[in-house]
């Protein structure tokens, strides 16, 4: 490996590794745990924010009374008429004419419901509540009162905001490179760009000093493919898709790319939505057997999706983008960046899991709660490159990065871990 800045590295994703699995469990445990844990974290925040005048109550303590000012902490459930439903998909009527899946099923008629440990109540709060920007699975504290119609009128709403942040003490200009959507099945379209990226990575473009400051490369999902395989709904149980040879071939190509990159820099590969990995979040690392060349290098590893690591003192959190895609489908949020920012504000990486985003049925934890505020927070496979330095309460600074897919834009993101500056580098070889 070329000489590079040294950088302390710590993989903090162990909570995403599944060593044992139990599929007899249901999803309520995950919700329950999420609510319990986030209630614990939200309670002091609510007290700090709203004082002790207004009591924090459970819905069942209201006993149907009206006009009681109180604070309720609960999980949001958004009732949406066009939410994808397997029941509807398999119902006889639609058997021959399956309804095309909607790109976005957020509608003004959506109903917002807050559910605490035991009961539900309809939320109402007009413009300010921005219910179209909220999603199922968010835990929040609401202040307001009940009315005779059975609604809870929300006056204020409070989210967890991703915990405290440790100070950033990175001095040297060490840089992190993020790439996503390598889509090897389509690589014939951009193989030149990939080559250029490789030269750049190894400092062959007279960029040796730049290259030396690069400490790590994270490949954020969809390395093999970036779109779903055709799906045929029939009477039958889903038939196993024949594993096409081209996928196997694509992986061996990837193996050689990764092997050569890993000779230059530390490479962390996350699986993505359409990669040959498991479907539910958290996606588990690729198996070593798939990358026989790269796996021999100690600088190469496959990691989970979502992925958390600490580089020197910078906390980096990211996903391959499923959480963002799913949020954009179920809400009226208008950009990936906004969706990413929202998950940070809500203090939860993937609130729509498990409702519309597949996720493992955890029984005693919710590893997606953001208990510590990251310095770098990214999502792969977004529509376009977007970034912002988000400043949260108490001056917490987080670099938000929406990574576009390389196959579409031939670009990567480079983040300066000391300043949290971020820029996009394009390797497009098209003549302009």
């Amino acid at each position, binding site marked *: 490996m070329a000489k590079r800045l040294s950088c302390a590295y710590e993989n903090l994703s162990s909570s995403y590794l599944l060593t044992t699995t139990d599929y007899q469990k249901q999803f309520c445990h995950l919700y329950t745990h999420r609510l319990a844990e986030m209630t614990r974290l939200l309670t002091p925040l609510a007290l700090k924010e709203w004082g002790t005048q207004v009591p924090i109550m459970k819905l069942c303590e209201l006993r149907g009374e*009206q006009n009681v000012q109180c604070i309720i902490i609960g999980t949001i459930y958004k009732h949406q008429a066009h939410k994808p439903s397997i029941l509807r998909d398999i119902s006889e009527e639609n058997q021959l004419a399956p309804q095309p899946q909607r790109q976005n099923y957020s509608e003004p008629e959506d*109903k917002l419901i807050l559910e605490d440990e035991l009961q539900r109540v309809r939320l109402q709060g007009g413009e300010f509540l921005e219910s179209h920007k909220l999603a199922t699975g968010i835990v929040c504290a609401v202040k307001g009162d009940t009315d005779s119609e059975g609604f809870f009128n929300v006056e204020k709403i409070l989210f967890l905001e991703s915990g405290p942040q440790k100070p950033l003490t990175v001095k040297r200009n060490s840089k992190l490179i993020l790439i996503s959507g390598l889509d090897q099945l389509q690589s014939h379209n951009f193989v030149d760009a990939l080559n250029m990226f490789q030269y750049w990575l190894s400092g062959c473009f007279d960029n040796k000093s730049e290259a030396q400051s690069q400490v790590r490369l994270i490949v954020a999902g969809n390395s093999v493919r970036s779109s779903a395989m055709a799906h045929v709904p029939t*009477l039958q149980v889903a038939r196993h898709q024949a594993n096409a040879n081209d996928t196997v071939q694509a992986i061996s190509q990837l193996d050689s790319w990764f092997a050569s990159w890993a000779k230059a820099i530390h490479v962390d590969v996350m699986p993505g939505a359409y990669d040959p990995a498991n*479907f539910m979040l958290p996606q588990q690392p690729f*198996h070593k057997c798939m990358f026989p060349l790269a796996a021999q290098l100690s600088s190469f590893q496959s990691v989970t999706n979502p992925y958390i690591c600490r580089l020197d003192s910078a906390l980096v959190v990211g996903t391959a983008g499923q959480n963002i895609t799913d949020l954009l489908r179920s809400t009226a949020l208008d950009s990936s960046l906004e969706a990413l920012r929202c998950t940070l504000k809500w203090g939860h990486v993937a609130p729509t899991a498990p409702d*519309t985003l597949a996720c493992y049925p955890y029984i005693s934890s919710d590893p997606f709660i953001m208990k510590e505020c990251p310095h770098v927070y990214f999502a792969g496979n977004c529509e376009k490159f977007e970034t912002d330095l988000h400043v949260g309460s108490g001056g917490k600074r987080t670099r938000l990065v929406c990574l576009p897919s390389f196959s579409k834009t031939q670009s990567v993101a480079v983040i300066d871990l000391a300043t949290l500056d971020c820029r996009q580098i394009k390797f497009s070889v098209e003549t302009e």
Partner: protein
Amino acid sequence: MDAKRKFNGNGVANGHSKKPSKISRTYDDDDDMGGGFESELAAFEAMDDLDQTQLLGEGPENQQTSERWSRAPPPQLNPAEDRLIFQQLDVENYVGQPLPGMPGAQLGPVPVVRMFGVTMEGNSVCCHVHGFCPYFYIVAPSNFEERHCAELHEALGKKVIADMRSNKDNVQEAVLAVELVQRLNIHGYQGDAKQTYIKITVTLPRFVAAASRLLKTTIIMSSFDFQDCRAFENNIDFDIRFMVDTQVVGCNWIELPPGVWRLRGRNSKPAPESRCQLEVDVAYDQFISHEPEGEWSKVAPLRILSFDIECAGRKGIFPEAKVDPVIQIANMVIRQGETEPFIRNVFTLKECAPIIGSQVLCFAQETQLLDKWGAFVREVDPDILTGYNINNFDVPYLLNRAAHLKVKNFEYLGRIKNIRSVIKEQVLQSKQMGRRENQYVNFEGRVPFDLFFVLLRDYKLRSYTLNAVSYHFLQEQKEDVHHSIITDLQNGDEQTRRRLAMYCLKDAYLPLRLLGKLMAIVNYMEMARVTGVPLESLLTRGQQIKVLSQLLRKAKTRGFIMPSYTSSGSDEQYEGATVIEPKRGYYADPISTLDFASLYPSIMMAHNLCYTTLLLPGAKDKLGLSDDQVERTPANNLFVKAELRRGLLPEILESLLAARKRAKNDLKVEQDPFKRQVLDGRQLALKISANSVYGFTGAQVGKLPCLEISGSVTAYGRTMIELTKNEVESHYTRANGYENDAFVIYGDTDSVMVNFGVKTLERSMELGREAADLVSSKFVRPIKLEFEKVYYPYLLINKKRYAGLYFTKPDKYDKMDCKGIETVRRDNSPLVANLMNSCLQKLLIERDPDGAVDYAKQVIADLLCNRIDISQLVITKELAKTDYAAKQAHVELAAKMKKRDAGTAPKLGDRVPYVICAAAKNTPAYQKAEDPLYVLENSVPIDANYYLEQQLSKPLLRIFEPILGDKAESVLLKGEHTRTRTVVTSKVGGLAGFMTKKASCIGCKSLMPKGYEDRALCPHCEPKMSELYQKELAAKRGLEETFSRLWTECQRCQGSLHEEVICSNRDCPIFYMRQKVRMDLSTQQGRVQRFGLPEW
């Protein structure tokens, strides 16, 4: 007192809405998928609070605890000046004492008719009608004259009294009058000369049977022998007799003019006996019974109470009232014509957390709960009681439970203060529904209107569980809690009981929604009005009573009387409706269909077929009738022509069809949706009634079967179909200048399918219309052939089996019409129905026969390779009794399951779902049934051959034979696609115990060599590890996705994120899937893990 405080507390909690009430918009039929019933309930208007004023002047049982519950107080009425008008809902009789000043016997006991009803203002009425006496006729023996009447009167009276086993009512007078009357026998034309009959009027209804029996069997008068004197009208129910004679029809309006009625009050004599707000007395000849026409077709604001109970059963035992407590009763009360219930509450045992929008009434003791519920029913004073299967479960259970706990006064649920509601067994035998044993509970004045019965009568469905029904009609899945969990929920805390209360409320609410959606109350009420029978008898009795009631009414006006007929149970058959032998095939050209409008009724009208016009053998000569005065039917029976005597049945039919026409015309102009409902219900009731007249004459265990009539009707039908065929085929020919020679390809009871050999819909419709007019002109009025529809394309499989795309206008098809094809049969698995449906859609809508064949082959291949979801293979049967003579699959299975786990095994009355599993050769089918869940959990192999051969093959061949011809079988059932089969290895039974599992290579399935046992692949396959690993992973991906989608769907459906899904609704299409995916995913995860964890 504790309970009362509770009432108050909750009342305050729920009340105080001064805002204008808001009718929830979320109530539209399919708007709410999973927002949860909870939020629906919450969106109801808020409830008023309760006040605890006691209503003065009523007996102790009738308390007024809530303004919302009680009816508004009645106006102050003065019988001398005011009239009382009410809609009667129930007519019954009792034995009482004569009221001075009323007609009829003046010595007790006497029969009194009681009518219950509601005024337009919503006040309940009980009306005692006095003076009407039962009677019957016998043929007068020759030489019996007026002067003999007195002797017969006395002699018969004595005999009847002596015949009584006991005389605790102190009956002194049994026969009230004997008189000679002139009447006509309804059965057979004998000219217009009336015969002499003896009309015997008795004092009590039960003496009718006794007197006629005594006349037949004993010597009453030495000078006359009555043994051979046929009795007439001695088998008519007293209530029907009363209604016929006073022109009262079911659910009509009754008016009591000023001065003829008496109001019972606190100090009146007799004292009030009922819980109705107004209780009155009137003579049977003093009230006005309004025909339900015009203004009098309105409907009073009836109160309909729908309720559902939950019991805490023990594991494995169907709840028994002697042991298992009633823990919740949910109630919804709606006023007829309104859209939302105005009372919603749930009575719970032990504390239950509040439910917004519903009142929660908690009780520490079950006895209190029952006691208060009884009081609630009495206070709400519902006119109609409904629910789902309340007649056979909820009501008897409550009564038995209350009796067991000795809850005082619980059983007084009816409107008569001193009459207890008791359970009786009732057997209903009808052609339409077969034999059914039911429990019947009396609620004097309230009509039990069980939705379950309505559905059973009027709809043919795969399954009649409330889940299945609400999915079918409302497109909503309903969470179902298995009885084994109910007890756990009850024993939890106030929140788990609240959860239970939500189900209970939903189960009380759904029947109301369904009744509304199906317009059941309105339609039944119209049926009662049209046919003249009480509302209740429509659900508890068969079709015959309706025709009987009409026939009696008509006969009475014309001086006819009906002989009593004792069913001989003869097997005499008359030839049924005929069909023109179908020319089977798949017709890609339009097929025009010509229908006879109301064929059987019009035949009866056109040819004057009736009891009164029938010439019995020899009568023609005896009466000296000429040939042109009579008509010989194709069945070789003689009837006199209308010029000589117009038949009663044709008259009944005429008025029914005329009324239907009026209703249809009114429907066209009516704007008000509620009135439209009434009118539509009316026209439908009229149509059904007209058609049942024919059935009445053919019913062999009927009141008055007459095979001459029914046989002639079908014979005429046959000749008319034949004639139509000949007319069409001889007129529409090339020779006559038409495009092609027309062929009648099929003809059924009342329709004829014609292939005019034209290519366009427009032309086939034009020719159809023309042909209908042409043929109609050949028939006697009112028989009319109508052009109704074109099938295009049309698949004619066999007699009564066809399918086609149904067009009434050329631009767009109306629907896909399937007759006699396995799309709804209940004893098939859903696979059959779904496959048939899909194939037919491909054949008819997509017009792609090849695609249909391919699809069928694909499904067969999937079946053989075990790729069909198990829910598609489930067959369901009700466990009606356990001692069938022949062994039955579901009974055997139920016994097997009981051995495994008595807790969840099906009980008597449950529906048992099962699948047929593979077993050794020659194992009888009934031993191959297995619980689908057990099959999933133990990977028991399915008997794919059974499904292919017993379930799929016949229906499939039927629809494909017209297309593929003889080779259908070889193409569909023996092709290449049947060669690959997958058989799973069972974890139980057979050889499973002897098998040891040895590691095999995931790649090539070979046994692992030594030293490799804990690896995934054998040395040979190891180089392909990446590829094989990916393959396993891909399988897991698919399962993971399905797992997530299924279980989150259930989480959403149950309306709570933090509670575990406990639904056990086996009718839900994903019930088995979600279990299967669990298993499959665990197995697949095991396979993936053999490759080792992805560690770096």
